[in-house]
């Protein structure tokens, strides 16, 4: 796998090689301690943010095609939850449309934000398995979590303040994926679809894998 990284076991200090950028949990071969890979990210003051260069095929400024549509990566936001982290890439297509590309447990999802046309239940009242309407379609809640912006780079259409708490509800909208994101000032709503790896090609200059 590409670009293995090495950490140290926090329990016994033995080297803890991590074979792939997709790894989030690792066990020590020597003392069998189970550790979460979180990477150094943010200092507690929240004043400066620094993204650990996790190996990835994407980078800000890279360009390529997704299902034949040319795109450019404008920015990325890294989120961190209690025991994991993930990146979302902000893509601008040549037709002017924008999208978010997220990699989560082996599934890549491309989402586009939509204007939310109707009220949704408050975050606190939502439970996994709930159903409610979003823009005339049924939003089925599959996951609920609270995360923080760990850092960002490039151009984004909203201010990604490091440390800002973000509350997510992921869902299934009649066979597509959906998300609701309660940010500091607004509720973002997005609808997406899984993307297969081979449906994305990166231009060589853009730093292909």
């Amino acid at each position, binding site marked *: 796998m590409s670009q293995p990284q090495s950490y*140290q076991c926090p329990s016994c200090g033995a080297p803890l090689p991590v074979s792939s950028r997709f*790894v989030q*949990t690792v066990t020590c071969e020597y003392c069998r301690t189970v550790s979460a*890979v979180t990477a150094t990210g943010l200092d507690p003051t929240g004043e400066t943010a620094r993204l650990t260069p996790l190996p990835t095929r994407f980078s800000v400024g890279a360009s390529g095609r997704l299902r034949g549509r040319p795109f450019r990566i404008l920015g990325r936001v890294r989120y961190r939850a209690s*025991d994991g982290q993930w990146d979302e890439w902000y893509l601008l297509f040549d037709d002017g449309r924008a999208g978010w590309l997220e990699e989560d*447990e082996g599934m890549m999802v491309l989402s586009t934000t939509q204007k939310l046309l109707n009220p949704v239940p408050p975050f606190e009242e939502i439970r*996994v398995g709930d159903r409610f309407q979003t823009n005339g379609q049924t939003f089925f809640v599959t996951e609920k979590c609270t995360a923080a912006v760990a850092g960002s780079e490039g151009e984004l259409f909203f201010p990604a303040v490091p440390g800002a708490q973000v509350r997510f509800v992921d869902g299934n909208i009649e066979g597509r994926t959906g998300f609701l994101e309660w940010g500091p000032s607004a509720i973002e709503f997005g609808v997406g679809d899984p993307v297969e790896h081979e449906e994305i090609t990166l231009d060589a200059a853009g730093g292909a894998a």
Partner: protein
Amino acid sequence: MRVINFQCPSCGAPASLESGEMTAECAQCGNPLRRADAAVQQQSAAVGYATQSGIRLGTKTLIQGEEFEITGRLVLGERDEEGLSQWEEWVLIGERGTVLYLELDEGRWKLSRPFVPSRPLGPAELQVLHEGSGINLGDEQGIVTGSGTYQVLHVEGEFPYAVRRGQEHRYLDAQSLNGFVSVEWSEEAVEFYRGQVMGQRQLYVMLGMRDELAALDVRERVLAGRRTAGKAWLGAALIALSFWLVSLNRGQAVAGAGGTVRLAQAGEEGYRHGPFRLNGAGKLYRLVMRGSLSQSSIWVGLVLEDAAGAQLAGAQRDMWDESGTDSDGYWHEADLKGQADFRLEKAGDYFIRVYAEPEPGRSIAPDALVAWSLHEGVIYPTYLGVYGLIAGVLGIAFLIAGSPAQVSSTMQALKEASEDDDD
């Protein structure tokens, strides 16, 4: 669990985080606090769980053009009324980030991946489903094969998601048209997976497990040999039982040895019929009698005698024939047949003596008859039947011993053998 003490960077109040916690809130000023000191944090300590499968972490395999590595292994457990059951699950991470899950579930290998169903179900709908229920996720439909709650007992290797020992998840497995579907859920999330069931051989080929494959080849040859032996024994049983059926014949009727006797003729001394000549010394004979009565019940005995009147063999029967009319209309029941087999010691002239005894207080009707006959060369079929049964049992035993279900016990044996090698 380690506790990290520090000061709130905002107000300076003392704060602490346990290892495993990333965020907290300052008790004084409410400032959200996050850990940033460690690249990795301790989650839990693990105890060893030996693998049952021979699958090794680090094994690489090509699946649909993508190279995967087995990076992590979980031992999951479920406690029910039968005790703790355990099974293993491996995570395979592809070079492109695709994640597959490989699970050994009651001897079946299941390879699965997450999917987005067109008709998702939530905890409230999932927890009322039970074994045998139908489940409809839109593009995937199936029959529920099991459900419950599992706990992560053991974590080993690397995972593309956060996992800790002691985590609990509800789960539901279903057999679908294309393979299987499973759903896992907790208060935080519900996840849908689908995949295919694989055979042992398919798995070994996929993971390039040559030693296991060779052992499986040997084992399958042994099993195939047993199946062949089983079929041969069953064939032999079929032949033996066919002969046994054929041999249930009556032999050749002996000319002159037979006739019809009016039962009323048989007094206390009986009625002697004969002589007739029997030449088949050492042969099996069958004495057959058939009565003809009406509205009566008579004990009938036939005895083979030699010329001197010595009684050699006999057949007897309570014969009866009754009929009448009841609410269902006319009825008629009768039992009028009897027979006995014997071996003739020497050729000579013989007689049949017919005895008859009516029910107490009744007399023998004049039209009550018994017809009798002697048949020579009856094949005594018991040994054929016994042989057929033994061959049949052997055949079935070989077929069972040669059935593919025995492979899993073979794997157990292999595993034990490999552990012995390690020692």
